[in-house]
């Protein structure tokens, strides 16, 4: 690995550990279109890492590479000190990576509780026949998983909608349910694709608090994409800035804020 240092301590006293994931010279093409061009960065244990950039910069593609949904044509993804071969999404999930989606992807007809329970799938060892009979092992297993899910429901304060079908919920709550489902998988690395998109100020404040609490209480490493600069600068420890598929900045929020290239990308430059 490039950086073998033991990590650092943040201003508010959180200990950030060593590198858990490293992207090495990633290039991703769709036919002739280059979505990501030769990007390298790392994610450290326990940190909140943001990926920002204007529309079409390749942020979501980057997140999809991390989550294993896209396999880059060039470059390597290292996870926990080992090079990751191309994988199916469920194999990635079993490695301890969970995500939420930019456009909510929940089971609309199912209750909040059932939706969050699906996040526990990789913890269910009994087969479909045992579960249909629901005796002995299957019953005990459901009890254990339900307990874990209830703790998350309590943590995200969604007890009052436990039995409500997701389709009846307002947008902000759906986003929270999606976070709950991702947490149910007890991820080591949590990927959030625009967790605050379309929210009002109050919902954003709530969501920010939950993200910080998740990081703090469970020690979960978080990588997030977000448009709201205020939120990104407040939440994250380090920021990667992308523009037209290239990395144009990487560092603490303050460093990034003062980077001329980043300012140009966001505010535009005159071409005369």
């Amino acid at each position, binding site marked *: 690995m490039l950086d073998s240092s033991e990590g650092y301590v943040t201003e*508010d*006293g959180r200990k950030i550990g060593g590198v858990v994931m490293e992207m090495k010279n990633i290039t991703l093409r769709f036919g002739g279109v280059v979505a990501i061009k030769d990007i390298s960065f790392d994610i450290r244990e326990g940190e909140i890492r943001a990926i920002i950039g204007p529309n079409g910069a390749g942020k979501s593609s980057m997140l999809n590479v991390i989550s294993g949904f896209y396999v880059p044509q060039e470059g390597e993804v290292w996870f926990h000190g080992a090079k990751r071969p191309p994988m199916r999404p469920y194999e990635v999930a079993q490695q301890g990576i969970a995500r939420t989606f930019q456009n909510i992807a929940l089971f609309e007809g199912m209750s909040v509780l059932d939706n969050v329970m699906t996040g526990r799938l990789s913890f269910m060892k009994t087969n479909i026949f045992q579960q249909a009979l629901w005796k002995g092992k299957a019953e005990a297993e459901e009890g254990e998983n*339900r*307990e874990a899910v*209830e*703790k998350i*429901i*309590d*943590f995200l*304060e969604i*007890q*009052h909608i*436990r039995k409500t079908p997701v389709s009846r919920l307002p947008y902000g709550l759906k986003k929270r349910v999606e976070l709950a489902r991702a947490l149910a998988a007890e991820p080591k690395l949590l990927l959030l694709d625009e967790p605050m998109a379309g929210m009002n100020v109050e919902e954003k404040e709530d969501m920010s608090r939950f993200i910080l*609490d998740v990081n*703090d*209480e469970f020690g979960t490493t978080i990588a997030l994409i977000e448009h709201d600069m205020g939120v990104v600068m407040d939440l994250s420890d380090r920021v990667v800035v992308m523009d037209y598929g290239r990395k144009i900045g990487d560092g603490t929020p303050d460093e990034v804020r003062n980077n001329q290239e980043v300012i140009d990308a966001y505010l535009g430059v005159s071409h005369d």
Partner: protein
Amino acid sequence: MAQTQSGAEGVHSLPALLHRNATQFGDAPAYREKEFGIWQCWSWAETAKEIRAIALGFLELGVEKGDHIAVIGRNRPAHYWSMVAAQMVGAVPVPLYQDSVAEEMAYVLEHCGAKYVVCGDQEQVDKVIEIQENLHQVKHILYTDKRGMRKYDHSQMNALDDIMAEGSAGHARFDAELDKRIAAITYDDTCVMLYTSGTTGKPKGVVLSNRNVIESAKNSAEFDHLTRNEDILSYLPMAWVGDFIFSIGQAYWCGFCVNCPESADTMMTDLREIGPTYFFAPPRVFETQLTNVMIRMEDAGKFKQRMFHHFMAHAKKVGGLLLDGKSVGFADRMKYALGNLMVYGPLKDTLGYGRFRVGYTAGEAIGPEIFDFYRSLGINLKQLYGQTEATVFITVQPDGEVRADTVGVPAPDVELKIDDSGEIHYRSPGVFVEYYNNPDSTASTKDAEGWVATGDAGFIEEGSGHLRIIDRAKDVGKMADGSMFAPKYVENKLKFYPDILEVVLFGNGKDRCVAFINIDLTAVGNWAERNNVAYASYQELAGHPRVLETIRAHVEAVNKSVAADEMLSGCQVHRFVVLHKELDADDGEMTRTRKVRRGFVEEKFSDIIAALYDGSGSVSTTTEVTYEDGRKGSISATLEIVDAPVVPVAQHKVAAE
């Protein structure tokens, strides 16, 4: 009145009652709390153990006799236990309103000099820490919910669990001391200190003794034949005297079970799951439930709707009579039984009142239609009139004598008298000891013989002996022409419309009355949805011409009914304005128990009142608002002033003579 010296049945403190319950029926459920989706249960024996552990922890922290321990949090067993544990070590528990902003809390904490604070969660801890910056008196903070607390400086802070564990571990050192302190509690020692919400001025700390609490609990429990098989749901603020009496006083006296909801948002679901047998709610809860039922019935199919309305009409006719034990014809009884099977029973289950045996509403007047709706379903809902200073009970309605317009007869052992000005006075074993550190207020409220002035004007109805409340004595005034001004009377009539949430009437010393009105967002929002009225905010909906038209119709109807009352015909509403914001306790416009602070509102919105009187058609105003986290902002609006038709009151001169 005869005063027992040894205490009722020889028990003279809550810790003693706890001991009695734990030994006599230790296995019976004492507390339930829904956590992680499951109702967790503690028996009386387990409760006694938990409370003792907290008390030992307090001793380990060095709590002295007479110290004040503030408790700030939502209704949870651990918070109730902390209060009883405080009593065990000879300290005084002081529950505070958890939704108070830091500056309100600062006043109360400073006034009672609390050295220890039990907080529900991080939010409350943050407030106490903020207060502590100016007020260096709190020695130790305890908290129940550990979430988010890891990074705090724990030199003067602990989780309640941890001090319980430490206390239990060190029990050999403290057992003797604790037993000594429990044995030393006398019947006249302070049981609890509760701060009144104060519609005027600063809150006052009402000191209640063990005698006050136990005698009141005993009398009221006997009055309603409460047993140890009751289930209650504790969801009202712990700082309010009613919750203390129901969830601690009566619960310990009778030995019944206190159920705590999972969170404030799940209260309605939890109510349905518990199905309390004994229930208390302010009118607002019943109004909200009725509004929801009606909204959902409008969404139901035609057949269900017709069945509902048919049987509800029948219930209205005979339901109340049946509940009062009056005679009802056989055919009507049979039809009611059928209705019970088809409509009333399922409806009661949905509301969570399937096992409802007796319940009270108080604090505000309840609309007669709302009151009758519940009673006609066979729900024994009654009214009482009480005060913190009386340890709740002044008058209560006995079974069989329940009416919407009175507050009942004097509660057991309560003496009542009305003075020349019409103000109600009472004397009872529940009369408070004093206002803490405030002898002047104590003297002006309670006389040497123990009579307490309520500050409410009322009269005792001839024949039935029931008390009827007119208004707060200081709010009753005179109009410019000398006729009586009693705002509450008119406000309540208007508030009985589901569309209207709150009303403030002005007119003292003026020639005519004007009003502020708050719409009810649930009811009006539903109406808007049904009628394709688009709106983006509360403010926009409140100013919508069709909403104003509806409210004007309500005001017109109320004016007609007010005009029919000879004494108060001068109180008709001539002009009104629908406010652009809801009156809110965070802005100081209401008390934490949601009573309007009239003087404050009058001052804050003086520009609008001026416009109401000077005849202008609209008024532009900017109002400061406080957000839940204490930050301030402001909203501006142009409000339309509406003229309401009034009934000419030529005859009221005759009444005034």
